[in-house]
């Protein structure tokens, strides 16, 4: 298992065939969905199915569970049933305030203690889906040490903002920027939004690349064909790796020689460039590339 969260692949919690097969597509993380993918009359069945599956078998990747929102009657039972399975995290929809997160944190703690699970084992990923949530993004990210990622739920956000969906998602640009900025400020993972148009691989790749440019390092996906495309965009290319290696080598040589000015191919190398190069190499290594 690698240590990255390039892709979080949603798997409907009420579909046994999809649950059994989900791991084959190579996503860094699977999220079993108890929320939007499951109709109200199947909530119990989905919870039981995911619970039975994870009790019997653990796919070789990160595991998350999207529970139902705190404003639903399913939320508490979802947490009580899922935490004992020790997923890597629960993903909370409609995270709007720090209080939402602290409330979930407290409930997880109770269930962990009741099941002799070390407190803090199960992390929280926050899905921000409203104007208020975007406004509070930094407070949400800092609300609990369990929070390790925040991301935008674009469809609900559009509804809350009375926005129409455009082809290039221009209307959610500010929200994406805000989420990325707040995530980095809080030192958590910024998760890019779900682009549901899996029939347009080129358009999807452009969208992922744009998200990467905004600072996202993780993309939520809903179709197997999207996984490889995200990994392709996020994983450093051989050219980028070679350049990063040269930057680090030049920097280390300059340090060894106590040289004041560092340059590569006639361009000055300063500390942020060296940091980025080291990040590229670490990311590439985590993605299984040869360094």
């Amino acid at each position: 298992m690698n240590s990255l969260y390039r892709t979080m692949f949603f798997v409907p919690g009420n579909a046994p065939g999809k649950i059994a097969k989900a791991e084959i597509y190579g996503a860094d993380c699977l999220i079993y969905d108890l929320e939007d993918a499951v109709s109200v009359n199947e909530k119990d069945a989905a919870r039981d199915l995911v619970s039975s599956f994870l009790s019997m078998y653990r796919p070789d990747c990160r595991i998350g569970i999207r529970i139902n929102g705190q404003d639903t009657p399913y939320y508490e039972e979802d947490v009580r049933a899922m935490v004992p399975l020790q997923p890597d995290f629960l993903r909370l929809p409609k995270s709007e305030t720090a209080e939402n997160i602290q409330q979930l944190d407290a409930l997880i703690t109770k269930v962990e203690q009741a099941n002799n699970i070390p407190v803090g084992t199960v992390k929280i990923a926050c899905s921000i889906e409203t104007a208020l949530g975007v406004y509070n993004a930094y407070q949400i990210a800092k609300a609990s040490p369990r929070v390790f990622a925040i991301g935008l739920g674009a469809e609900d956000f559009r509804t809350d903002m009375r926005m129409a969906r455009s082809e290039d998602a221009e209307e959610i640009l500010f929200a994406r920027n805000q989420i990325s900025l707040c995530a980095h400020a809080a030192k958590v993972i910024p998760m890019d939004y779900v682009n549901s148009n899996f029939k347009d691989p080129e358009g999807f790749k452009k969208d992922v690349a744009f998200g990467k440019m905004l600072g996202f390092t993780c993309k939520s996906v809903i179709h197997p064909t999207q996984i490889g495309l995200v990994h392709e965009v996020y994983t450093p290319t051989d050219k980028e790796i070679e350049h990063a290696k040269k930057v680090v080598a030049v920097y280390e040589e300059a340090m060894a020689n106590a040289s004041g000015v560092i340059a590569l191919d006639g361009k000055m190398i300063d500390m942020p460039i060296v940091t980025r190069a080291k990040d590229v190499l670490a990311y590439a290594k985590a993605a299984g590339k040869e360094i």
Partner: protein
Amino acid sequence: MVDEKYMEQIRKVPGWETKQAFSGAYNARPEGTRMAPRPVKFFRPGTDKVKSLDYILDAIGLKDGMTISFHHCLRNGDAVMLYVVDTIAKKGIKDLTLSASSLSKVQDCLLPYFESGVITAVDTSGARSKLGSFIQKGGLKKPAIFRTHGGRARAIETGELHIDASFIAAPACDRFGNLNGVEGKSACGSLGYAMPDAEYADHVIAVTDGLSDTPLDYVSIPQTQVDYVTTVDSIGDPAGIATGSIRVSKNPAELLISRYAAQVIAATPYFHDNMVFQFGSGGMAIATAGYIRQAMLEKNYTAAAGVGGVSGFHVQMLKEGLIKTFYDPQDFDLAAIDSLRTDIKHHEISASAYANPFSACPYVNMLDFTVLSATEIDVDFNVNVLTDSYGKLLGAPGGHPDAAAGAQMTLITMPLLRGRLPMLLDHVTTVVTPGESVDVLVTEYGIAVNPRRTDIAECLKGKGLPLTSIEALREKAVMLSGKASPLEVSDKICGVVEYRDGSIIDVIHEV
């Protein structure tokens, strides 16, 4: 592999006294002459070959106990078998052996003739549906024999399968008896599977709905082999004969398997400029061909030849120049049929040329690699393509064992589970293709290389492929599906599965 108690039952069948159990894909060493006996023919100039079927049946002296043959190139659109068998039945003839290169679901209409004793024995590649059930209820006088395409040609040529009368469905036929499958309203493409019958049957009768008064330009089977021609309004339903378009899989899991298969191929020395390959025409095989096409473009490779059944995707590669020539025993869609008729690089070959193991070199021996499917596979890499998980007849060996034996590398692409059932087992329900001729299993959960092929395993290391052992894949299948109870089978056998060399590789049990 075949229990001796079954071999004892088999050897009690008249004519099968010397049948041997399978002992290895390349162990059989043929002896004697190749030529099966065939009556000498003489036709005076001006003799009209076009007659009614009733007249022909009398003329050839068809009688009880004889063997009649048909090809399956009309697939699920065939109307010829019913027409001929019904005409024979009306003459009161019984106890016939039906030798067909395969039997499709459409042949369920023959069931009444089985039940009434007109047909009492079957020699085929596949049987399914109602005929399959009839066979497995013990309805035949002796076990049905299931042969490979190459094995059937071998049996005909050695005289082991003697055909008294072959009725060849002919989409186009002239008054002299030349016929082809590429013209006419019921065009089906290559007539490769009818060619051994035409060459060795005592009597050859073309059944056509496309009679031409002038000699045909394109000739698949020549007039010198055809004794009579009879006409019908329709030899079959075009919708069941050939599909209109190619089916490329859109299933993400199947696409993943196809991509892995292409990556495996591309990592081995069998992927090279001027390679020779065979892909099936299923959605997954076509998807694999699509990925291989991409890899060929990237490397600037072309294939010297394609071998085996043809679909529109193969035709596209032929037209693009990515395949230089094609050797074709059967066609699956309209694009393939049209290509065979018009493209001089597209060659019609007989089932014997394609796969007969007892010839100087069947075309399958050219193959660098072949990509095949499977109904089941086991931890010894044995493959079943004939029966389902409950032992019921479902498919046909077809050219599977032939291509696997001929190719330098044989890949099986298959989902690990179908529904709740594991497809990778400790032992397949029916062995059709022996594991020694299967090299790589590609599933959505991982890739297993036959331990016999350490050379291939070495090539795949460090290529980022999910390599595992077949035992580990089996464990995974069991973990996901649970362990199935062993299948209870009857001791009574109703069919024998013949390997391409004529040995018995497995048996079919009554159900």
